[in-house]
């Protein structure tokens, strides 16, 4: 094992005086696939956004470590510097570039910053040549309505969001409710890809409400409620715990 990890230390975040996240100590990524579960409003999405520094933390620090490289305090880096370090996050709410086609959107994700300078107006051909195989591999696997047109349905946009992140070849992949809005058969194929990535060394954190998926895929589960991680352990343990059942699953689920 020994993939990329994120260490969260003393991190708090409050919105308008209400503490949403209060995590004294948490390590994500010690297992290939970890689940992050909890009731609505538990602070899961906020925590993921804090990790990506798309919102600033109030206190504490978040450190990202990839094997063989120095640790980086990502909580003091600009958000755009984090994906190149090897960590990306998919979006819970559908996010899209409305003027870019599906092909464009994938190519944008794959393109290196050095090819996007204002003087590189002749680099399209070489950029396409460099990335077309990997992009076509995804386009072949998932049947978009029109890969050279715009993403039409919410499902296509959601899938596109995940594929863009995969094209960045992350070592740490945070998936914020990837199945919400995806058709069932697409979910299965996405998860296949995710597991494939995890087996070759990418650390995956899965924020999900579909608990069967979490129990099935992850080796370790963090249970969050009221801004704190209340419980951690292998799926079987977390699943059997009284707190989880009370706070989250309700009587019927046990």
């Amino acid at each position: 094992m020994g993939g990329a990890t994120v260490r969260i230390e003393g991190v708090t975040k409050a919105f308008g005086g209400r503490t949403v996240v209060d995590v004294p100590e948490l390590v994500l990524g010690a297992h290939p696939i970890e689940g992050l579960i909890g009731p609505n409003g538990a602070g899961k999405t906020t925590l993921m956004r804090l990790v990506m520094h798309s919102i600033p933390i109030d206190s504490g620090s978040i450190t990202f470590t990839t094997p063989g490289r120095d640790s980086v305090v990502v909580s003091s880096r600009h958000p755009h510097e984090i994906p190149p370090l090897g960590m990306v996050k998919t979006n819970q709410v559908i996010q899209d570039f409305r003027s870019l086609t599906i092909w464009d959107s994938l190519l944008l994700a794959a393109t290196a910053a050095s090819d996007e300078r204002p003087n590189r107006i002749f680099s399209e051909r070489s950029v396409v040549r460099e990335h077309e195989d990997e992009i076509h591999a995804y386009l072949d696997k998932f049947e978009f309505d029109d890969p050279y047109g715009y993403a039409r349905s919410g499902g296509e946009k959601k899938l596109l969001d995940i594929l863009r992140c995969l094209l960045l070849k992350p070592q740490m992949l945070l998936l914020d409710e990837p199945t919400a809005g995806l058709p069932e058969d697409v979910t299965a194929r996405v998860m296949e890809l995710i597991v494939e990535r995890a087996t070759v060394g990418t650390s995956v954190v899965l924020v999900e409400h579909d608990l069967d998926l979490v129990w099935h895929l992850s080796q370790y589960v963090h249970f969050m409620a009221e801004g704190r991680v209340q419980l951690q352990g292998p799926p079987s343990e977390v699943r059997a715990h009284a707190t989880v059942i009370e706070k989250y699953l309700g009587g019927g689920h046990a």
Partner: protein
Amino acid sequence: MNGLWDFLFGSPAFLTFGLYTVVMVIGLALLLHLQMGLAGIGNFGVVGFWGLGMYGFGVLVVTYEWPYLGALLAATALAGVAGVVVGWLVADLDTDGVLGATLSFATIVLLLADGERDLTGGQVGLGTIDFPFDVGARTDVAWLGVLTAIVGAILYYVRRVHRSPYGRLLIAVGDNEALATSLGKATFRSKMLLLALTSAAMGLLGALYASMSHFLFPSHVDVRLTIAVVVALVLGGSRQPLGAVVGALLTVGLFDVVIKVYVRLPPDFAEQAYPKFQQMVYGGLLIVLLLFRPLGLLGDMRRDRLSKRGRHG
């Protein structure tokens, strides 16, 4: 035939000046297309950057007696720096805030041109500024040629940008900056670089205009030029590379070439009422366009119809 020739080219000075204005507005609208149409930066201070180039150049050449080329480069750089400073100041504002702030910037340039009399001469004017070369009585036509070559290069560049990774990045920034950031794109730096380059080019067009105008007055840098550029771009289509060309031909081409040169307006009307009439039409046109056809005559960007290169699997 002689009659037609005389009709078309009978007032060469008016014609050259009118065409110069058209080509210049095309150039400015193309640059605004990169800022607004692609990257989503609503710059309502075009004349400010252009005017900074024009007055910067004029002051250096006339007041400080700099050599022509040196002043041209310095004025261009000055406008570019202004682009970065203004861009940095408005970075966190929403669209309305950016429009207001850039409009204010242009007003500051106007007030400086009017107020800093030691440098600019104020209402008295600043001159005379000559062409850098002399090919006889029709040097102005040659100067129009120089401008046309430069604007042609800008048009070529803009069309290439649409087919390059750089254009894709700018469009992504304009569409959803937060999403582009989450993919590791340095969106702030991209916008600053874009503003530096496009504002500098606007400044260059201003500096070149100084030679055409010979005398510079604060009225050159009032809001009318901004309006003309915005109307041209919005009419043609702010999201299409050719929108600037189509729009400028239909607006400035009609008012400053066709009507001014070929319709014999009564002199009183031409001097006093005509410019105001032109502004009224531009204003009305802008309102009608934004209400009924905000994407202009050419419509939205259609990247799904772009060339098929690289699309074979």
